């Protein structure tokens, strides 16, 4: 692996635009057809309605453990993944439902996974934080804060090694940037010029601790300077802004094989997980974001202004999404739990493929 010798394209840092859709006229957005815009809107709505339905299932006691809702951040997952080509990949942290649906996973397999059912995307073995769909270039769903960031570098490494014109979009939260492994990953990405895009979804709170109480410097993306990586701060509430700035990073990865760090300003409308009394922030703050910065409503309004959406179409899309979510809940309800023998499957490849087994001896120690 050769070390970089020259510093290539480097955008200068800009303050985040507070005006909506400052990038509406970016070529990557103006080239969208009416149908494509409607599909993007539909995905935003589908994620929102799906997660609202998961919350009900959680409250009914059907979902175990944690449920980290993405509500309020949808423009990021939908905007970024709407740009993916055949060799572009995604990996994210535990708040992963939005990214999963955005890359094309079905509500059924996701809802069933949440309920620990055999029909879930991971056969009920992963749960809320661990959705995977490698056939859709979606590599999870990772539960440990920051733990996915070197994997994202590794996916980008593999793409470069195999000389593919692709990239890995690796998502992380504002809380992750203080994990050591994130910095190790950034260093490797910068040092080896890996086509990885680290997208920091800055929703201002790492669980119950605000950005100001977590980070010595609150310009999170600026840390990329230390690793000679281009960086950008983006209004993550705006679908068009997300797409425009992510596209620049994808092109940098594709054409120059260089990494980018993008910090996207966003806000989660719900608690860290479902059981969160949210003492750490004012209700008024949350209400303000819901009123002024809801990414679904913002994009909806934009498309109404553009005469792409009508009230009837909005209603239809929302009804369909609600019905799809409801059907997924029924699907999950009716699906079986994994049979007991599943406990010991998918642990070792050889045990599941005995015809190719070369190892001997005892591999499980249950008796």
């Amino acid at each position, binding site marked *: 692996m050769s070390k970089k010798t020259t510093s290539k394209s480097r955008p200068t840092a800009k303050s985040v635009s507070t005006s909506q859709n400052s990038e509406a006229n970016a070529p990557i957005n103006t080239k969208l057809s009416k149908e494509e815009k409607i599909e993007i809107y539909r995905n935003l709505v589908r994620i929102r309605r799906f997660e609202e339905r998961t919350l009900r299932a959680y409250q009914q006691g059907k979902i175990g453990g944690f449920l980290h809702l993405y509500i309020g951040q949808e423009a990021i997952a939908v905007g970024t993944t709407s740009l993916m080509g055949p060799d572009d990949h995604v990996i994210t942290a535990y708040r992963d439902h939005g990214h999963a649906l955005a890359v094309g996973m079905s509500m059924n397999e996701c809802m069933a996974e949440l309920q620990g059912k055999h029909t879930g995307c*991971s056969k009920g073995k*992963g749960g809320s934080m661990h959705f995977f769909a490698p056939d859709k270039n979606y590599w999870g769903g990772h539960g440990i804060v920051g733990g996915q960031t070197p994997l994202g570098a590794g996916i980008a490494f593999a793409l470069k090694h195999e000389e593919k014109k692709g990239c890995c979009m690796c998502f992380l939260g504002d809380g992750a940037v203080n994990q050591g492994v994130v910095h190790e*990953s950034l260093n490797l990405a910068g040092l080896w010029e890996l086509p990885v895009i680290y997208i920091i979804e800055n929703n201002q709170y790492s669980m119950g601790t605000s950005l100001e109480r977590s980070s010595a410097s609150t310009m999170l993306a600026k840390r990329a300077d230390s690793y000679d990586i281009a960086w950008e701060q983006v209004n993550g509430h705006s679908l068009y802004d997300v797409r425009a700035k992510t596209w620049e990073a994808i092109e940098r990865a594709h054409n120059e094989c260089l990494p980018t760090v993008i910090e996207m300003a966003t806000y989660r409308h719900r608690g860290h997980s479902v059981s969160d009394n949210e003492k750490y922030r004012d209700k008024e703050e949350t209400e303000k974001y819901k009123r002024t910065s809801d990414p679904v409503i913002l994009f909806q309004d934009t498309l109404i202004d553009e005469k792409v959406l009508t009230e009837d179409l909005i209603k239809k899309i929302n009804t369909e999404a609600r019905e799809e979510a409801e059907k997924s809940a029924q699907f999950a309800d009716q699906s079986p739990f994994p049979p007991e023998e599943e406990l010991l499957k*998918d642990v070792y*490849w*050889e045990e599941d493929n005995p015809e190719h087994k070369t190892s001997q001896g005892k591999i499980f120690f249950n008796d």
Partner: protein
Amino acid sequence: MPVITYRQAINDALAEELDRDEKVIIMGEEVAEYDGAYKVTEGLLKRYGPKRIIDTPISEAGFIGLGIGASMLGIRPVMELMFWSFAYVAFDQIVNNAANIRYMSGGLIHCPIVIRGPANGGTSVGATHSHTPENILSTTPGLKIVCPSTAYDAKGLMKSAIRDNDPVYVMENTLLYGEKGEVPEEEYTIPLGKAALKREGSDVSIIAHGRCVQIALQAAEILETEDGIDAEVLDLRSIRPLDEEAILQTVRKTNRVVLVEENKPFCGTDAQIAYMIQDKAFDYLDAPIKRVSSIDAPQIYSMPLEKIQIPDAQRIRSTVLEICPISSNT
């Protein structure tokens, strides 16, 4: 048959697998331009070039995690840890990510990675550099752990490890790198999970892994000449999978067992093996199962005391004598 060092045997295994499968790459600190901190990867950069033999910064969590990510896309990285002790700064990657990705994805994602490097004390490098984490890592389902004790095994097990579709962690030993042994010229592999009977005997079974096998063999010689005790020595070679049948077979034969390892005693690998023996061969035991482990303190730096801390032939001998009746001497 050619006689080569343990170090050369691993080097040969790596080269043969690099030749066989273009997806195999080598990555680690000082593996390329420096030719390996312990020269295990010597000459590989020259032969295979910087695309496949890759120096990393001192950044274990980063580069091990990177290797895991690359393996998910089909690359077969062989990662060198300069010492297995350094695994502790990459623990989340080594345990949480590598071991769990296949399970949590319902079998959709594989992680065919090898992590290799020395794991031993006895070289006066102090407590931070002397860990033997085979016990800690073999407790995690999804991982495979092997501890070769000879040049022959190091080569054959390494080749199997690289071909395995799951994470395999190979624990070598800096004190064995220079040890020579017979290694055939023709290609071979050794299946993981197959123990090797290193010495036949009838009075007591000494079961060990890694360098402790060599010490057990020395002890067996002393026991024969000094005490008239005929010890059998079994080399586990692989901790997970474990050759349970070979263990039970030797116990049923000699009815007395001494387990030897360089781990500290509490929750050492041999604690599990002792449990298994009492559970499955209780009626065959004529004496309590005994263990020889490192003395239960952080690894001491001072050379003469470290020699006392880790198992040696005399400690094995005296432990055997505790459970073997002296009458067998007559």
